[in-house]
């Protein structure tokens, strides 16, 4: 099934999505990768105010290539690097969707509240085209790739619902099949 959704996503928006569905997003997405996750958790633990809004937010695992305030290439980075930190992040903030590539293996942490959406890896140009405007840039001291970019997107996708909020994970399903095939090949 295909969905066109607008951020911020509601719990209801997220619950409707089933692994294998296709989503196109409109609205605001927030980039964060290794260093931004680290700082988000640190600041949250210390009770510091986060300078951007994470209520119902969509996090995008991306370290874009920017020229001033224009995204030149902005495809997803490998999400698995953020898996551990995301489990804690989801406890501290009401994040409704995470966009990335390669999967995270955190179905339990996503359950009933959040989905993982896969954007095609390596597709920096299509993603950049779907970014309408840079709304803000935070924690610029972390550098171009690691800082937080708040982006307004239009028809951002196709995003594959890889992990839904009901304990279904496409990556896991594919891996299990591959494991069986490996045994046959032995």
């Amino acid at each position: 099934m295909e969905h066109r959704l607008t951020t911020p996503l509601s719990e209801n928006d997220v619950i409707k999505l089933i692994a294998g569905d296709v989503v196109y997003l409109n609205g605001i997405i927030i980039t964060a990768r290794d260093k931004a996750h680290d700082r988000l958790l640190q600041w949250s633990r210390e009770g510091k105010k986060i300078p951007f809004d994470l209520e119902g937010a969509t996090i995008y695992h991306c370290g874009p290539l920017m020229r001033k305030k224009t995204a030149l290439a902005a495809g997803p980075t490998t999400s698995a690097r953020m898996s551990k930190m995301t489990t804690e992040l989801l406890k501290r903030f009401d994040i409704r969707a995470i966009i990335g590539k390669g999967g995270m293996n955190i179905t339990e942490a996503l359950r009933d509240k959040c989905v993982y959406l896969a954007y095609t890896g390596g597709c920096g140009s299509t993603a950049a085209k779907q970014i309408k405007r840079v709304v803000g840039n935070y924690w610029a001291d972390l550098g171009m790739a690691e800082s937080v970019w708040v982006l307004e997107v239009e028809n951002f996708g196709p995003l594959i619902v890889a992990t839904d909020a009901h304990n279904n994970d496409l990556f896991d399903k594919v891996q299990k099949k591959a494991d069986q095939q490996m045994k046959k090949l032995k």
Partner: protein
Amino acid sequence: MSKITRKQVVNAVLQLLRQAETELPEDVLSALKSALETESNQIARTQLSQMMENAELAKKHGTPMCQDTGTPVFFVEVGYDAEIDFDLMSAIQDGVAKATKEIPLRHNAVHPITRESSENELMDVNLSLVKGDKVKITVAPKGSGSENMSALRMFNPSEIKHIKHFILETVKNAGGKSCPPIIVGVGIGGTFDGAAKLAKKALLRRLDKPKDEFELELLDSINSLGLGPMGLGGNTTAMAVNVEYGSCHTASLPVAVNMQCWAARRASITLED
């Protein structure tokens, strides 16, 4: 005798990086196209179509196809009779710096422990001396998503039959993280670092070059795993498996597997007087 100038090298590096970062090689593009023709999995088809649209857009706008503009890996073949009276490494470094500014590329270099940004541009240069008086420069910008999924194992010489399993396991464990459909570069033999270099060199081979029996067997087995484009399922996990061999010590059997994402960027130029 052919006199190569510093300016020639700096400009060549800039030009090569621009071409590699913005234009997917023809043979890779046609491998993606034929994957799309044979792929029946609907999700896999959306991924392959997106990749092809992305390649088209990057070429049209002259912008890098992927935000991870990678580590520029250079293979430089210097002819014995070429005349070079300048610091070749610093000329390449200057070319990379120029490319980073002008194309532009993402500055990716950090200190490994502090993770603070390094001033120098990231690059890996492999020099070799060859016959003739020309200088051939090849660049293959290497993204980290696939590089991180690579592996090396020092086998016992009695374990030859385990090599295939090791390669398959490396590909399987990488899942979608290496951005399939991948090219799998395998280096068998040499030394610890030599095997890794063989594997990296194997990635440079054009996809339309003929394959041997072992390479075809590996390709079939890998694609039978069903990981598919971006690990979301499908028939196309790898576009090619390229194996390079090197003599090794009688007590050793190093095997390296270097993964290359679908955005297999590369470009070459030959410099002469």
